[in-house]
């Protein structure tokens, strides 16, 4: 303990260089190469892509001439998609809030509840949204309800994962001060943790809404309602000029949501 500055201690030997990083880089290159190779991978050939590009010329041509007369017909399914996305996002993000606190090491009442909630969330996220849609279409029939249920599980999985990890990284100081004043778990969550993660929560919710609009298109392909069903019909009948209208519409819509969420986030942070 006595730090007399007379004789400084001997310099330590230089630590051996870590081999983890070079090995990691090599492994990364090897895996990528294997995945690309024709023998064991998908056999991706860039030249082939270029030479085949012309085959779709007719489709491209129709795509570039969207049939705007089709627009009114897309209004109702598009509205249904948005409604599905809104309902699923609001319900999903609301349910994800308590789940997130249970699935964080910081706020979960005990290790058992933490591990159990993390585990359930992993399972929920492991199942792709398209599979949920197939299951729910089989269970409750074709239509928007199946879509909402599929998106709901998807929303909970995504939001709760992101938010619980944010809760893990929260500043512990306000938690300690709340504990020191005799606060209980709920009070600590409400006043020490929630204010810290609220901007993130809003951002994640908006992001999930965005994902839901996009995902509801895909799950519509298997009959779970919305614009996806119309998109599928038009695609099956090779009416690419109509598909083009839907794609442009979706692009604009997702772009608008993105702008809206940027604006909202800036106001909240």
């Amino acid at each position, binding site marked *: 303990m006595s730090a007399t500055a007379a004789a400084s201690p001997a310099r330590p030997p230089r630590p051996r260089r870590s081999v983890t990083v070079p090995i990691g880089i090599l492994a990364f290159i090897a895996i990528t190469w294997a995945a690309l190779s024709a023998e064991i991978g998908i056999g991706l050939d860039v030249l082939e892509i270029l030479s085949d590009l012309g085959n779709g010329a007719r489709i491209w041509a129709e795509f570039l001439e969207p049939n705007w007369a089709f627009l009114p017909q897309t209004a109702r399914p598009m509205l249904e998609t948005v409604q599905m996305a809104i309902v699923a996002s609001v319900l999903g993000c609301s349910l994800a809030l308590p789940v997130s606190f249970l699935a964080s090491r910081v706020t979960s009442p005990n290790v058992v509840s933490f591990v159990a909630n993390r585990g359930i969330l992993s399972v929920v996220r492991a199942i792709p949204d398209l599979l949920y849609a197939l299951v729910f279409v089989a269970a409750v029939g074709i239509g928007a309800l199946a879509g909402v249920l599929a998106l709901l599980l998807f929303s909970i999985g995504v939001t709760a994962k992101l938010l619980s990890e944010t809760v893990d990284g929260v500043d512990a100081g306000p938690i300690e001060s709340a504990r020191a004043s*005799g606060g209980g778990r709920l*009070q600590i969550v409400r*006043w020490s943790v929630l204010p810290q993660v609220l901007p993130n929560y809003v951002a994640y919710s908006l992001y999930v809404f965005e994902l839901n609009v996009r995902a509801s298109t895909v799950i519509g392909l298997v009959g779970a309602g919305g614009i996806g069903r119309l998109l599928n019909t038009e695609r099956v009948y090779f009416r690419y000029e109509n598909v083009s209208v839907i794609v442009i519409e979706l692009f604009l819509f997702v772009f608008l949501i993105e702008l809206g969420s940027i604006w909202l986030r800036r106001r909240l942070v």
Partner: protein
Amino acid sequence: MIHFENASVVYPGGVHALKNLTLDIPDGQMMVIVGLSGAGKSTLVRAINGLVPLTSGDVTIDGVSVRHAKPHQLREIRSRIGMIFQTFNLVKRTTVLNNVLMGRFHSSGTLRSVLGLYRPEDTEIAMQALERVGIVDKAYVRASNLSGGQQQRVGIARALAQQPKIILADEPVASLDPPTSHMVMRDLQRINRELGITTIVNLHFLDLARVYGERIIGMRAGELVYDGTAAKADENVFRDIYGRSLTADDVLGEPTTSAAAT
């Protein structure tokens, strides 16, 4: 009265932060704990409200054991002990008033506090606490918009809002500049004298300890190595507590006259 009886804390890593401490702190005392960092000052303070659990021995407050308290009893005990931190530990993204109302958690109950529907009398107590530290005008300002000194005053107001019997302050001025440090220490001294709240403060500046402490205890490697009045704690005593000769870093300087550092 706070009573330590053979209290020891061994952290999971094997560090013996508190060794067989026996100590009495009578009601209304202003006690300063000095020692180098790692000497066990923070552990001692946190043992009083159970934030750090003892591994042997006991701490009792007015005869009630902290170590053997059930969770709800422990919250009851903590509700009567205010605490002030080196890094203020405020919730920066909410208002000053909401921070101070955290001191009313215990008396307002879970449902009211979670919904933010505090009773008018709880809000009144919080406002009075802010008045006592002179920043009631900042009640509806976001805590992040305050200076360090103001934030520490919010910390003090939060502790006062508990209407505590005891206030623990863990290095309350270590993140502040010298004039602000004296201001905060004077606040604590005033609260101790006017309200008769037992006040226990960790400090490492020996001049602050001597000016504001009524009683000084010295810690070294988890052990009590000095216990006496501030008047008797001269340079030799501090040299003994610190286990080395004193340097300019051990004094804060400014407003008060303090012994020259060697």
